[in-house]
């Protein structure tokens, strides 16, 4: 447990005065993500610890440098989970000794959600409140530790996925969920177009589907909920049931991008599209999550063609993993319309008037 608020505030104030760019960093598990890494590192791992956890309130509050695995372990002890099932992209085992583990702050800043996202919501949906130091070193608290709170603008949700560009998080309060009583994964042999139709059809029914993944002509869905509900859905859907260990390995592999699909040197694209969009005719292999809404593409195709394909169907494409020169050339995040970019720059400026917080991590322009 450590509280570095005062120290950090002074460091930010002095950086603001000198114009020194700062880069917040926990375990560095997501250093690969974003447009660029710039600025003097502020290591968040010393500012750690669970500040409050009340299982019957469904709320946990922890400092930003707290290891995600420590939070998940505390929740597991009470039969609860982080609903958005975040990827760590770092070692997760409790016995891992190296300090490259994902932190809560990084998890919120990256705003990346895992397999359960389509069923229960994204990181931002679970953020209830947050304290941060803005780019002038001012401590600001937004939201709180209660489920419903509409006092003031919902700034704490804005912070999810902001990639540290608006300030340095101190602590975050999250809504948590009970661990489902039962889980069962089912496998089906199915080409992509059938899988997309099937998933959209199931999503319109009252079924306890908590995750889906299609890859290499195989669809796997996970059922979560009451034992009886999972059993009934299994009978209704058919398919081949996976053993628990195999299922856990599959979902972890997809979430952490350790599955075979993610190996290799080709750039990895993340396409977020409406779930009903038919198979995208793009060169390269695809892996599909979130009931059809999230399409991973391993491809060396031109960035322009991939972005256009995503935009045409109302989505967007992120260059998720690639060599730095490729990122420089293509831009990591989907370009914003002119007016939106101008508005986002004004919002950035309102929190970080000196432009010192993770500059250029999201867009070159801020």
């Amino acid at each position, binding site marked *: 447990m450590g509280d570095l608020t005062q120290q950090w505030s002074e460091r930010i104030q002095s950086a603001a005065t000198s114009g020194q760019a700062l880069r917040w960093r926990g375990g560095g598990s997501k250093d690969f993500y974003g447009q660029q890494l710039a600025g003097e590192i502020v290591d968040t791992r010393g500012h750690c610890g669970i500040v409050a956890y*009340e299982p*019957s309130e469904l709320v946990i509050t922890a400092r930003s440098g707290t290891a995600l695995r420590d939070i998940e372990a505390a929740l597991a002890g009470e*039969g609860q989970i982080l609903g958005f099932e975040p990827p760590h992209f770092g070692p997760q085992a409790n016995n891992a000794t190296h300090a490259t583990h994902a932190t809560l702050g990084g998890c919120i800043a990256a*705003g990346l959600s895992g397999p359960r*996202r389509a069923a229960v919501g*994204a990181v*931002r*949906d679970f953020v209830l409140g947050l304290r941060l130091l803005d780019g002038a070193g*001012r*401590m*600001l*608290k937004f939201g*709180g*530790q*209660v*489920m*419903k*709170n*509409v*006092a*003031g*603008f*919902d*700034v704490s*949700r*804005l912070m*999810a*996925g902001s990639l540290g560009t608006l300030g340095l998080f101190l602590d975050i309060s999250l809504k948590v969920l*009970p*661990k489902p009583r039962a889980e069962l994964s089912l496998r089906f042999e199915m080409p992509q177009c059938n899988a997309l139709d099937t998933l959209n059809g199931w999503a*319109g*029914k*009252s*079924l*306890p589907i908590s995750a889906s993944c299609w890859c290499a002509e195989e669809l796997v869905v996970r059922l979560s*909920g*009451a*034992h*009886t*509900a999972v059993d*009934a*859905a299994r009978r209704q859907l058919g398919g081949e049931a996976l053993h628990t260990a195999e299922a856990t390995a599959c979902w972890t592999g997809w979430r952490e991008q350790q599955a075979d699909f993610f190996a290799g040197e080709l750039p990895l694209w993340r396409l*977020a599209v*409406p*779930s*009903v969009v038919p198979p995208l005719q793009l060169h390269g292999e695809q892996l599909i999550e979130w009931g059809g*809404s999230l399409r991973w593409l391993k491809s060396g195709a031109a960035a322009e063609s991939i972005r256009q394909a995503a935009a045409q169907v*109302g*989505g*967007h494409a992120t260059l998720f993993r690639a060599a730095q020169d490729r990122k420089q050339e293509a831009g990591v995040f989907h370009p*914003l319309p002119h*007016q*939106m*970019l101008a*508005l986002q720059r*004004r*919002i950035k*400026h*309102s*929190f970080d008037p000196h432009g010192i917080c993770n500059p250029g991590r999201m867009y070159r322009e801020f």
Partner: protein
Amino acid sequence: MTKHRQHQATHEQDFSDVGRAAFLRSLLAELASVVPRQALLSAPEELKAYECDALSAYRRMPLAVVLAEDEQQVIAVLQTCHRLGVPVVARGAGTGLSGGALPHPHGVLLSLAKMKKILHLDPVARVAVVQPGVRNLAISEAAAAHGLYYAPDPSSQIACSIGGNVAENAGGLHCLKYGLTVHNVLRARVVTIGGEIIELGNHALDAPGLDLLALTIGSEGLLAVVTEVTVKLTPKPELAQLILASFRTVEAAAAAVAAIIAAGIIPAGLEMMDKQATAAVEPYVHAGYDLDAEAILLCESDGTAEEVAEEIATMRAVLERCGASSLRVSTSEAERLKFWAGRKAAFPAVGRISPDYYCMDGTIPKKRLAEMLKAIAAMEKKYGLRCANVFHAGDGNLHPLIMYDAAIAGELQRTEAFGAEILELSVRLGGTITGEHGVGYEKIGAMCVQFSADELAAFHRIKAAFDPQGLLNPGKAVPTLHRCAELGGMHVHRGKLPFPELERF
């Protein structure tokens, strides 16, 4: 926490020097050139209908009302007002409970109520694209044929509009499980005060850049005007069942709420009513509530038949263990709706037994429920006023209904002091001054209690990023520090500040 460090840069603009009559003529002429004759109201008798929203204690006449018929008219009105420096207050169905749609005396009231088309409903993609004036319930009605519905269900859902829901981040009876408006809106098309169209979100599950959709939902009309909304539709649960449980003490009922959550269940609905509330409701709707109970709980489960059976059995066991004095499980849809009818009629029922009532909207951690109820009971004695309590117990959102008679001198003032004390306690217990009704005009003073000077300044900078001149709904939701100081005097009671132990500035 820094306070008094700097005087706030952004002040609410002062419109008082605007010469009303002369200005009005030129404003009306400008508006008449951009909207059809029938869309522009300016006669006092026409404006009267718009002088307040559902918080009728506050009334003001706007300079003019525009009933926009399409997005083009919205843009034209905003551009005109922007050019002339005239405040604009957007309004949906006017069912808000915090005065968010209270007109500005030197401004235009922009009603979106005529924009009420459901533009597109896609049952396979499970989305509906609607105009802002579409009623909340109308979306669910349109989706019903496909076995789908729009989940957030504020008690005003029969009348309230989706645009207003977006402005207020409306909740409802089922939000512990299904979320608030922010969890159920995928996209909003908005117009800024400068007349620019901005698309927030999309039909995928996320959008590039900062999440301005989340920021805009619940922004109470201060950032932009919504002209189109895409909502997520949810499959209708196969079955819903309700347990009605009675308790001899409010402490036992509150403990049962925590025990249900601790048992790993997220009920579809979890409501509490105290004895005063059931006593008000029962003669009015005959819901079958136990009038001897100090508190009753309504616990709903929904989902597949199997899921519901399992959850109901678990909740039943928990409630019995927690000392429920009686317990009934709905055996039919009709009975479930009858049990709900009492809860849903709580506000009008209290309105029947008291000439006036003041509805509060604090949220506290669930574990403090019993403490809050005890404190409210003590406040009833202190202020000599009755208070019926209904709670969204699952998420700690309280709606104490303070009963008073405005015709009796001093009762309104006592009521306001009573309410202020409840809000003070909400903040002190780790909660908030508003769970779902919004700050609006009503709670602008209480905002000064919950937020520091730096935080309020941050809100103003966000507003300025969207609306540099401060023309959209000025004087609502976020107080200026100047205003905080002024309003500090408004709730002074017997020479004491209502929250003497809390930071003031």
